[in-house]
Every structure is written in C-alpha cells, then in structure tokens.
C-alpha cells in the first residue's frame, strides 16, 4: 500500500473511516464509563477491537443510497455510514428524543427510512430484511447501483435465519455485502463449539457467492476488501461474503469480564486502532498531530452529544400513545 499511489477519493475514504474508528472508540469508552456509573438504561454492547472492520464497511456504503443493517458491534460502521451521534447517546440514555423514543434501546436503534433498519435481537434476522429492501427497489426499477450490507458474528452463522437469508439473497442475485466478523467467540462460546469447518470463508462456494477474507485488525486491508466487495456488488455480481477476523477486546456486554478468553489469545491479538494509527502515519496519510487532533475533536463531540442527551426528557408513559399499529381508524 505504501508504494501504491492513492487517489484523492481513496484517501478521503481512508480519512473518513479512520475518523469513524477514533470517534467510535472514544464514544464507546464513554458509554462504558456511563454504564459503570449506572447512567445507562439497560445493557451496553461494544465493538472494541472491531472498529477497522466496521468502519471500513460503513465508509464504502453511501448514505441516502445504500442500505445497511449494523449489528451489536458496529458503532464504527454506523458512525462512518453517517449515524447522528445524538441518536446514540439519546438511545443509550433512554431519551424520548431519540429515534426509538425510549421504546427500544442501545444497539436496537435505527432509522429504516434512512437506510438503516433497527435490528431485532434475534441473530441472523437482518439478512433477509436487507435483501427485501433491495428486492423492492429492483422491482420498481430504482435499484441502480445501490447495494446493501449486513453484519453478523461467527455465532450468528449457526442460525437458520442466516442460512436462509444468504441463500435467498444468492438465488435472487441481490447486491449485498454479508459481513461475518469472526471474533473467535459468541458470548463465551468458542468457534469449535460453533462450527467445524476450518474457515467460514469456505461457505461462500456452497452459497454460490463471492468470498473475501481479511485480517480485521488491518485497517487498510479492510478498506481494500470492502471497496472491492462493494464494487463487485454494485457491478451486479450478487452477494459478497466477507469473513473478517479480529478478537473482541471487551466483554460480550459491559457486564461481562470475558475471562473465558484465554490470556494467550489476548496477548497475541493487536488493537486495530493502534494498527490504523501507525498505518496512517507510515503512509503519510496523517501526522501524529493530526491524529491527536482527531482524538481531541472526537472527545469534544462525544462530550457534547452526551451532555445534550442528558438534559433531554425521558419518555412519559402518559404521553405514549401505546399503539402497535399505525392505522388509527375507528375500529382498528
């Protein structure tokens, strides 16, 4: 990479992705301390260690055009895609001003009409949903070169929903990036209790889709793979299965100390943020001062987003309309 000439556009994307990583890490550190201080409503699930993967996917997607179903560890991807920071803090703090109005929380937030569905908890369920969004557009002749993306963990690959969704997307030849982040564990469950193939990427052939594998701690490699996969999907080559490997650098949720992750494994693994910082400097993409500035700006942004949300009201049960249906005719 260092030797290759990087186009201005590519450089802008790299910058964008890197900023998202830093902002995400800053935000998640803040969420973690808010959680420990008892300020958060419900659980906190972080994506530490997976920012390079997530941010690079969010970066190659185009908001207002593409559709993206992030999962629990996709703060970086959401940020890169263009999610408002206030959506995050308002949701975690259970504010009625957030997109879920306090009706749902934490990672279950989204804005389906802006291309980002709000995940249900059931793993695997978002894949067919994203497929359907693209299907509807193609039916209407409005797909053009828009694409979709959805994230899953190694554990989610064991769900019937994942299988049915990926197979259906392949049969319908829909332009979807199906990102599997293999972080070696599903909650406490190691890979060898989750699947018995050597490498999940070997599933691509069985679905008849293109497969890509990448070291998820290598930010520039992630950017490359995501860019390729997005281009291939936009060009009409159907689903792109990406398997990205990176250890999760936190518990399953902030309530979990993750002591089931063997110390050797932790010791071996590197933090994608550190890798990305060196990559930015080594390639002359950013100086150390610029990086420090980004970090500083991120802190300011996060502090501000938390502060704004904190002043806002929580939902008032007497004002909620308690309607599960949108229709409000006389009988319904």
């Amino acid at each position, binding site marked *: 990479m260092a030797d290759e000439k990087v186009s201005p556009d590519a450089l802008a994307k790299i910058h964008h992705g890197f900023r998202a990583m830093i902002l995400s890490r800053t935000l998640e550190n803040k969420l973690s301390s808010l959680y420990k201080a008892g300020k958060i409503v419900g659980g906190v699930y972080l994506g530490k260690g997976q920012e390079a993967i997530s941010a690079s996917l969010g970066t190659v997607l185009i908001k207002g055009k593409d559709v993206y179903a992030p999962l629990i560890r996709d703060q970086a991807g959401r940020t890169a895609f263009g999610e408002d920071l206030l959506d995050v803090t308002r949701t975690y703090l259970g504010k009625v001003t957030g997109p879920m109005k306090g009706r749902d929380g934490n990672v279950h937030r989204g804005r389906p009409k802006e291309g980002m569905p709000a995940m249900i908890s059931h793993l695997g369920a978002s894949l067919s949903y994203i497929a359907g969004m693209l299907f*509807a557009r193609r039916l*209407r002749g409005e797909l053009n070169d828009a694409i979709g993306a959805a994230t899953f963990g190694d554990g989610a690959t064991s769900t019937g929903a994942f299988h049915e969704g990926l197979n259906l997307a392949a049969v319908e030849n829909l332009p979807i990036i199906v990102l599997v982040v293999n972080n070696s564990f599903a909650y406490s469950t190691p890979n060898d209790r989750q699947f018995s193939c050597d490498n999940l990427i070997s599933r691509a052939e069985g679905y008849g889709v293109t497969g890509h594998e990448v070291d998820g701690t290598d930010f520039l490699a992630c950017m490359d793979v995501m860019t390729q996969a997005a281009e291939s999907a936009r060009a009409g080559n159907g689903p792109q299965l990406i398997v990205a490997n990176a250890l999760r650098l936190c518990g399953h949720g902030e309530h979990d100390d993750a002591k089931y992750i063997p110390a050797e494994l932790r010791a071996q693994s590197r933090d994608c943020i550190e890798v990305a910082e060196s990559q930015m400097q080594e390639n002359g993409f950013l100086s150390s001062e610029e990086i420090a500035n980004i970090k500083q700006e991120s802190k300011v942004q996060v502090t501000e987003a938390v502060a704004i949300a904190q002043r806002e009201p929580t939902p008032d049960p007497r004002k909620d309309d308690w309607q599960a249906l*949108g229709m409000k005719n*006389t009988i319904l």
Partner: protein
Amino acid sequence: MALTYIEAIHTAQRELLEESADVFIYGQDVGAFGGAFKATEGLAEAFPGRVIDAPISEDAMAGMVIGAAVEGARPILEMQFADFSSVAFNQIVNQAATHYYRTGVQVPITVRLPSGGTPGSGPFHSQTMESIYAHYPGLIVVTPATVADAYGMLKEAVMMDDPVMYCEHKFLYRWLRADELKKNSLPIGQARIVRPGKDATVVTYSAMVHEAVKAAEMLKEDGWEIEVVDLRSVKPIDIDTIMASISRTGRLLALGEGFPWGGVTAEVVSLVVAEGFHLLDAAPMRLNSKDTPVPYHPDLWAAHRPTPESISVSLKHLLRL
C-alpha cells in the same frame, strides 16, 4: 358464472397486481406452477417478475417481504400451508409485528395462510394459526368466511399499511361459490350478522360460520332462532356488533376450529363477560376442536372439530340453562 372462494382470492390478487405496481407475490411454487392451490395460476405470466417462486425458506421469505414493505412495496407472501408459517414465526411476531411500535415505520405486508382442516390432511396440513398471531400486538388477523370476503378483505388487507395475517380456509376453497364479488361491503374490523335470531348468539369465523348456520337450521326445526355472527377479523374483534347481538339474545356460544386452550373463543367470552355480564341469561360457552393435534383419518378429523351436530348439542345445552 359463479366464483369459488379460491377464485375470489385469485381475482383479488390479479386486480391488486393490476392496480398497484407496488404489489408482488412471493411464495413457493407460486410462479409458473400457479401455487399449490392454484391461487396464482397464470399470474406469473401476466405480471412478469412480480409473482415469484421462493426457495423453501419461510423465515427468509418473511424477512424479505418485510424489508420490501419498508421500502414501499406491498408484498403478498403465500405460505404453502399455514402450518409452515411456524418457521416464519420469528420474523412475523418479532420483526413485522414490532416494527411500527419500535421505529414508527409501518410494514404493509399481507401473509396468506391456507388454513384449517380438510379430511385426510393430518396434523401438519390442517392447522389454524389465527390465535397465535392475534396474541401479538402489531398484527391484524382476518379470517374470511365467504367468497365476497375472501375477495374484498384480501384487497383491503394488501392496501392496509400494517401487517395483515390473512387466514384463508382450505375447506372453503372449492365448494363455496358466489354469483358476484360484492365490493367491500364491510371494512376489516367489522363483524357481520350472518343469520338473525333471538334465542342465542353463536360468535364464530371462517369455515365454522357455515357449520354454525347448519346447526342453526337444525335447531330451527324445534322453533329456536339462533343468531350467527361472523367475526371476519379476529384481531381486532368487533365487540360492538357482538354486544348488540348478545343484548338481543342473552346467550353466547363462542365457536372456533382451533385448539381449545386460549385463542379466539376465550377472547370472545372474556370480552363479552367484561362488557355485558348483566346481559347474559346463561353461562357463555365455548366450543373448539379437541385438545390433540388434528388427526389424519377423516372420521377422526370429523370428530375432532365442531360439527353441526356438536354445535347444536352445545346450543341446546346453552338454551336450557
């Protein structure tokens, strides 16, 4: 030229495809083959690319139409049998049903569920699932009992902005005929008095409407006048029409083809006693199928579900209390 119930469904789908470019049909074998019950015969040819064979993946089929609906489509999802929607259960009750409450975005899907028993169908091709889906907030559940309703309610369902579970009864597919398709006489959410009476009210829906009418005819010979109310939609339930009937008759039999624990009949009884306890002259009764899986042999099947005979026994019981 009289139309059958299944032809009414076919006609509704054809018209929907004609009238709105947002409508498409997804389901196993619905394309060139025209569907297991021929509800989509010829439609794939007439509407290229809009009547589509699905892989055997009920979960993904449901998730797919939900996503499509969020993007503005009005998909019709055909389950080959209602029984197989058990595989799509999670997407229906957790993705579709919660979507509006959680996000403010409505999901205009219609899920067609070929429901109910026919002789020799057995435990997995005979189920009625309306009580399961109606339990969940966020779903509308309709159960057409007539050819006109099969037509009118399907057209209305697909144009509704919320998810509708459309429970069509397989037993009615081919024997029920009507001369014309009355356009939408009643909206979804309103019950219909099928047969007036003054001695007792049977509240029922779907195929059991016709069994109730037969039982009422049997009792007429003894001079009893039984009112039969067709719920048409089991969620919402039109309690006003039911109460108007109960206030005339003072007696209620809630009748259904489903399993006996909970479900539509328990909901109807509970609503009626809450709203009009003082109007009742006798303990309200329920009659459902037996508490076993639906048996395969026609003789067992006929004894498993309510029949005109067992309905009239229940009614006699109700009238003599």
